[in-house]
């Protein structure tokens, strides 16, 4: 299955139209729960796309998705907790200035979260990416444990007890707050997919592909592999953090154990793997399918069983269909064309 070869502005326009259609479609149904469930699915679209920028394009596995996501969520919590403390720390003009901008709007929180987790991604990448790929994977796996330890010991953001975030009930223009969160995440998902597609067709994307196919040969032909890998890690980490930033407002209560849960890591890997990792459409298909399936399964079966399904699907797909659903469809089309 080859996506139509559109120019970028046309693609962005279409993506915006589809997003708008999704939003108004959901609004027309008049079910608030749709926004609740849709938010989670869209969050997974961002996570899967972000994972795929490093994992699918460069071939480096990131197991620390939960860590980056939680970084985003906790930077929001930290800024939220900072708000009532302004008067204790500052006085006079700085305090008035800070009061004017606090509490920060969600888009600003998203940008800050993106910067924080992007920097952590850069740091981890810088320390481990000069070595074989496996070390990076292991380091990201351990990163989640360490960040969780830090958060558990950091009382300012609630420690192991967790933190409550009280969100406003309504918001100007849109009405209900959950609708606002849904629109924000929809916009973020659209941006993530557009970024992924742009990368894929740019020089950067070709550089990533050379790393995935043969890093040694790429290095020998003058591709600046370390720099490219660092760009990918930073971008991918930043997007994951951005997906986590509105989370405290969505859920209302954050605690380390569930925020760092394996559910994010397994989903962020399983979705691109099941959809197909070589193109932007794979993670999109994978996350929409698997995300919706899980929303249904969580309600009808149980949440532990639904994670088991994700795990089994992941193992099944990597063994039997290495190129995911996109690969299966491609094979099917090819076989029909050559009888």
């Amino acid at each position, binding site marked *: 299955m080859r996506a139509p070869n559109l120019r970028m502005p046309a693609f962005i326009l279409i993506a915006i139209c589809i997003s708008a259609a999704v939003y108004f479609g959901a609004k027309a149904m008049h079910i608030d729960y749709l926004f609740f469930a849709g938010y989670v699915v869209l969050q997974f679209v961002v996570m899967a796309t972000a994972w795929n920028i490093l994992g699918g394009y460069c*071939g480096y596995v990131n197991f620390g998705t939960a860590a980056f996501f939680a970084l985003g969520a906790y930077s929001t919590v930290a800024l939220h907790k900072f708000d009532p403390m302004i008067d204790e720390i500052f006085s006079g003009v700085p305090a008035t200035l800070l009061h004017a901008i606090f509490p920060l709007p969600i888009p600003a929180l998203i940008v800050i979260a993106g910067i924080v987790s992007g920097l952590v991604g850069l740091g981890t990448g810088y320390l481990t990416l000069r070595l074989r790929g496996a070390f990076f*994977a*292991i380091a990201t796996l351990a*990163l989640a444990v*360490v960040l969780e330890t830090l958060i558990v010991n950091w009382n300012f953001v609630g420690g192991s007890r967790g933190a409550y975030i009280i969100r406003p009930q309504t918001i100007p223009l849109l009405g209900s707050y959950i609708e606002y969160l849904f629109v924000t995440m929809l916009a973020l998902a659209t941006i993530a997919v557009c970024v992924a597609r742009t990368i894929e067709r740019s020089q950067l994307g070709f550089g990533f592909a050379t790393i995935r196919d043969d890093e040694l040969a790429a290095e020998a032909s003058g591709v600046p592999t370390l720099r490219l890998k660092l760009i990918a890690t930073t971008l991918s980490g930043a997007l994951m953090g951005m997906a986590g930033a509105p989370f405290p407002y969505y859920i209302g209560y954050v605690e380390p154990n569930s925020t760092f849960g394996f559910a994010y*890591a*397994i989903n962020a*890997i399983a979705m691109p793997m099941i959809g197909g990792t070589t193109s932007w459409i794979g993670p999109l298909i994978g996350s929409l399918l698997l995300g919706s399936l899980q929303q249904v399964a969580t309600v009808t079966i149980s949440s532990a069983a639904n994670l*088991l399904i994700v795990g089994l699907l992941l193992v099944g797909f*990597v063994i039997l269909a290495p190129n995911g659903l996109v690969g299966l469809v491609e094979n099917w089309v090819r076989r029909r064309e050559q009888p």
Partner: protein
Amino acid sequence: MDISADLLVNAIVAGILLGGFYAAVTLGISISFGILDIVNIAHPAFIILGSYIAYIVNIRLGIDPIVIGIVATPFFYALGCVIYQVYYLAFEKRGQEALRGLAFFFGLLFITEVMLILVFGVDYRYVEAIYIGPSLHLGYADLPLRMLVPCIVSLLMFIGLELFLSRTFIGRAVNAVSQDQQALQLMAIDPIRIKRMAFGISIATCALAGALLIIIQPIEPSVGRQYIGRVFAICVLGGLGSLPGTLIAAILLGIVESITSTFYGPSWSPAVAFGLLLLTLAVRPTGLLGRR
């Protein structure tokens, strides 16, 4: 901070005992990751599986957990052989071990953990044995038997495997397969068979290591995650594929962790291994006694 000699001595002794146990946990990874180049991140999950087997048999039949661990070893060996066969056919043969192989093991790790949660729940489980409780006193130091016994068993297992790998034909073949697979083929040895056996052995160590783990601490299914950072930190710090290096690194980590948790609180100790891992990767990626 006031560091009293008494506390320090006890922290170091506890660290050495803990490190001895870590050696048993890392042994399997040292073979699969260090020698065979298979990044088996699911290893700690199999250790937890071993712990739960020790738990269920101990509760039902009252058999000593270490005996259970030894009896379970052949079954784990068979499990390891099966996993390697799948891994070989699906990934190694097609040259896709980097991305999909890792995802495969991550999936296994996840499935094992969720299955254990579904069967046993998330309550902490523990075993009963005569040596859990009493301790020896040597001057300043306390030697709790529930740490001492696992440490000794772990060291015996360690020495046994080291002798096996350096003295027997199969053991030498395992080392050879990591150096030059083709040369092995020219000598009419099937490298895949050797690798399968080696991977089987690496998983087989999980049975006993799991039994030792549940003697040392109560466990629940997600405890394994804390060990991922630890085992790889030890393996890398010791130098890939070097068993003596692994032992030294394990005891080193045990001591550092024990001192950290004595003087700064146990909630910090999971971060120690990761710090050590990053430091090693940044400063000396070949580890203490590395071959590369």
